[in-house]
Every structure is written in structure tokens, then in C-alpha cells.
């Protein structure tokens, strides 16, 4: 083989592999759309499931996932941002920050089912929250935290050092500098990174399996100590636990379509936010 032929061959190989990935995504999306769209109607989106999930809709699961995500945001955003601000702005880089960073990386690598069991042990049993929105949100928050910290750190580091120096040289304190001349430019990046992390949490099943999700619960939750249905778990139940698989197949696809649409639209919001703020703040 001449080197020229080899060059061509490598090019087409790489090209083919790249398009193959697009093909996989396209197939998944097409499959879900094709089979899921017929199941989508007003009743499906706004009513509770009936006769063990074989009929009716998925409204409680949509609401449940919404609450779980909301709870995750409330817990994880302040914690993650505060940690990132401490690590990038305040902490003296050394052994201690290395240990914190190692812990964050390790946390990011923990399998989601382990988070689920951890949440069961700590929040559900030890802290006596029971299987609830609170316990589920806290468990999802633990899982999302490393993503938010890393995204926030990146956003903070993207703000040039000379902006901090300029503010300090005017007599601003460290916190005034961060608050007035670093955070306004990094919040968009922090948010978009965080949204992507949280939208992943929205689709997780394992962490909420023992901590929040109910098999079948046609009522809506009244407090954060109530159990909820959730879209990913409902999908799991329909796909594996239902006695009549073929009967509920359209409902499985419908649920999958709703879940994917929700997550994709959240991601789209993040992307638009990023584009918008990139135009607003440039330096």
C-alpha cells in the first residue's frame, strides 16, 4: 500500500466512524419518535395511570420528576458554586486543594446505584426522611455535585486574571471583586454547565430507586416527605415489571419520548443561554 492510499483509507475510516455515531443517535431518536408519538395525547400527559399502568397517563411521573429536579437544583447549585468559588478564588493551591479535587473526581466516578444505596442508608434510614422527594433530591444532588463544581470552576477560571487585579487595585476587597467583577461574567457558564449536569440527573433511575420513586402512586405529593413517581423509574417499571409487555409497549415509548424531550429541551435552554451571554460579555 502506498502512503497515499493509506492516507485515503485512514481518512474514510475516521469519516465513517464519525457518521456511524450520528447514525446511532438518529436511529434512537427516530425509533422513539415513530413509536412514541402515537401514544402522546392530552390524556396521556395530564392524567394518572390506571389499571396498573396499562391505561391512563403519566402526569404524576412528570410532576415527580419535576419536583426531584427542582430539589436537586436547590441543594446542589449553591453548594457546587460555593465550592468552586472557594477552590478557584480563595484556597491556596496545595496539598489540601489536591485532596478536595481528588475527592470530587472520585465522587464523579462513583456508579449511580452506589449513590442510590448511599442515599438509602443516609437519608432514608439514618436521617429518617423515608423514601421521599427530599431523600431523592439529596441523593441526586450528591451525584450532580462534581459536575457542577467542575463546570463552575471552569467558568471562574475563564475570567481573566487582569479583571481581578484591576478591581483589587481600586481597593475592592476579595469578596467585592468576586461578587462585582468575576461572578457576573462567570454565572452564565456556571449555569449552563450546571443545567447539563442536572438534566442528566433528571434521567437517572438508580439513585431514586430506593430513595424516592414509587412503583404506582396516582396521587400527587403534598410535601417533600412524600414519595413520588418519576419518569425514568416509571419507564423501567413499564418495560420490565409489567405482566403484559405488548399491551403497554406504546406507553413505554410515550414515556421515553416525554423524558427525552424534557431533557433535550433543558439542554437546548442551556445552549441558548450560553450563546446569549457569550455575546453579552466579551473581553
Amino acid at each position, binding site marked *: 500500500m502506498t502512503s497515499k492510499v493509506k492516507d485515503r483509507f485512514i481518512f474514510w475510516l475516521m469519516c465513517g466512524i464519525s457518521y456511524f455515531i450520528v447514525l446511532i443517535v438518529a436511529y434512537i431518536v427516530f425509533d422513539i419518535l415513530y413509536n412514541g408519538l402515537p401514544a402522546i395525547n392530552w390524556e396521556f400527559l395530564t392524567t394518572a395511570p390506571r389499571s396498573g399502568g396499562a391505561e391512563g397517563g403519566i402526569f404524576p411521573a412528570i410532576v415527580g420528576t419535576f419536583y426531584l429536579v427542582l430539589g436537586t437544583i436547590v441543594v446542589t447549585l449553591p453548594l457546587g458554586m460555593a465550592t468552586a468559588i472557594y477552590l478557584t478564588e480563595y484556597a*491556596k*493551591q496545595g496539598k489540601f486543594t489536591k485532596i478536595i479535587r481528588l475527592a470530587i473526581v472520585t465522587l464523579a466516578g462513583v456508579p449511580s446505584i452506589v449513590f442510590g444505596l448511599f442515599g438509602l442508608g443516609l437519608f432514608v434510614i439514618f436521617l429518617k426522611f423515608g423514601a421521599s422527594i427530599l431523600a431523592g433530591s439529596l441523593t441526586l444532588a450528591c451525584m450532580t455535585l462534581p459536575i457542577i463544581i467542575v463546570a463552575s470552576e471552569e467558568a471562574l477560571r475563564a475570567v*481573566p486574571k*487582569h*479583571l*481581578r*487585579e*484591576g*478591581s*483589587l*487595585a*481600586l*481597593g*475592592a*476587597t476579595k469578596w*467585592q471583586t468576586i461578587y*462585582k*467583577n468575576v461572578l457576573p*461574567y462567570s454565572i452564565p457558564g456556571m449555569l449552563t454547565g450546571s443545567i447539563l449536569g442536572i438534566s442528566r440527573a433528571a434521567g437517572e433511575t438508580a439513585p431514586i430507586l430506593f430513595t424516592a420513586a414509587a412503583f404506582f402512586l396516582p396521587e400527587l405529593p403534598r410535601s417533600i416527605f412524600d414519595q413520588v413517581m418519576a419518569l425514568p423509574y416509571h419507564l423501567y417499571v413499564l418495560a420490565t415489571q409489567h405482566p403484559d409487555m405488548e399491551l403497554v409497549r406504546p406507553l413505554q415509548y410515550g414515556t421515553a419520548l416525554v423524558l427525552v424531550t424534557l431533557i433535550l429541551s433543558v439542554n437546548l435552554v442551556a445552549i441558548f443561554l450560553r450563546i446569549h451571554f457569550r455575546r453579552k*460579555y*466579551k*473581553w
Partner: protein
Amino acid sequence: MVDSVIVNTDFNKANSVLDLNSVNKVSVSNLNFYYGAAQALFDISMDIPQGLVTAFIGPSGCGKSTFLRTLNRMNDIIDNTYIEGKVLIDGQDIYGSETDVVALRKKVGMVFQKSNPFPKSIFDNIAYGPRIYGIKNRDQLNETVEKSLIRAGLWDEVKDRLNKSAIDLSGGQQQRLCIARALAVDPEILLMDEPASALDPKATARIEDLIGELRGDYTIIIVTHNMQQAARVSDFTAFFYEGNLVEFGDTKRIFTKPKIKQTEDYITGRFG
């Protein structure tokens, strides 16, 4: 260390006639500075007169910027730095335990080599400092912004677009904006770290004119790579080499009759 003061005749301005027995604004004695284990400044002592322009010259890495940054404690923000010696400003040791760094930096303004306008409006850039000191009154802010921009010679160019982003200004305008921003907190000393090194000759000339206009009202200390610039704008010049202060005296004498061979070699372009 300072020999006889010769008033710089480059500026035909009323304020050129200054008290020849000018008091020392800054007085540094036996200053050593370390980045970790590496010593960057060696036993520096010098007195900087009030209301005049003092230039620091020397080749890259000679410590002139590091020294400049010890005067408003900007080196504090770098991890693992260490300082010995005394820096007195108006007789007060700025490294003393009772010194308020925030108050010090209000008194000692700084302009950086790379102009660093904040990605905010022109107005918000200038009002940044006053707002930090708690001024909220709109009229008062308007007045400070206008005064500072006039003082920095930028008012006529920007008065119609104060709410536009400062990032869209030209390089020279940005640097004058940074000077105006520093002036807005009413400093007594102005540190300038190669303020014109990134500018074209015309914008550089404007900055140099501005230094001449501010001279007298502010004690100005300027680090520069450009020896002609030091000769044009300064009353006193200090030559640094490898972390040492080699020679310090009135600018005219330094550039015409340097006492030390190293200084002569540098200003005649034999090294650096």
C-alpha cells in the same frame, strides 16, 4: 539618594514649578522580595518625591514591575511570596500590622500594562471604585465620572456613549479609561506599569501628555521599557538590574552623566 532636583522643562505648564525641596512621598528601606525561594529584589532603598514623576527602567526581569507592585501590596495576591524591609508612605509602614490594604490601594492607584477595562459600560467602569466605597447617589456618581474622564482627557470622546461597553474603545482610549478609573477614587499616588507598551505612537504620546498634566497633583511612578519615554516624562529615574537598584537620580543627569558603568551601558543600548 536624590540629588538636586531639576524641574523637567518638557512640560510648559503652570504646575511645572514645584517645590524644589519636595517631601518624600514614598520611602523604601532595605527591601528584599522573594517568589518562594527565588529572591527577586535585593536590599532596595529609595525615596520617591511627592508630586513628581519617577521612572523605573531596566531590562526585562530586572524586578522593576515587582518593585512597583510592592508599593500597593499587589504582590500579596500571589501565593508564596515573602517580603522583608520597610515601605513607608507618608511615614506609615504599609506592611505594618495596622495597615488597611483596602485603604492603601485607594490611596495608591494602579494602571496596568495591558489595559483592563471591565466588560461593563464606560460609566460603570469609572463608577466601580466610588461604588465600592459606598457612593450610591446618582448625581455624585455622575460628577465623579465626568471629572475623572475630563482629567484623563477622554471626556470629549466618550461623553455621548457612557452607557456603551468599554471593550469597544480603542486601545489608547481603554488605557486612558483605566487611568480615569484609577483617578475616580481620588488616589495620591499613581503606579503605572508600562502603560503605553501596547499602544501605537500616537496613543503613546497622548498617555505621555496625560502624565505631564497629572504631574504635580499626583505622585506618579512609571515602569517603562522605553528609555526615551522615561527621559521625556520623568523627573527622576531609577535603573534596575537583576533585582538591584543600580542607580537613582534626576532624569537629566542619569541620561547625560550616569555615574555607574552598568547604567551607561544600558542607556546607550549596549545591553538590555
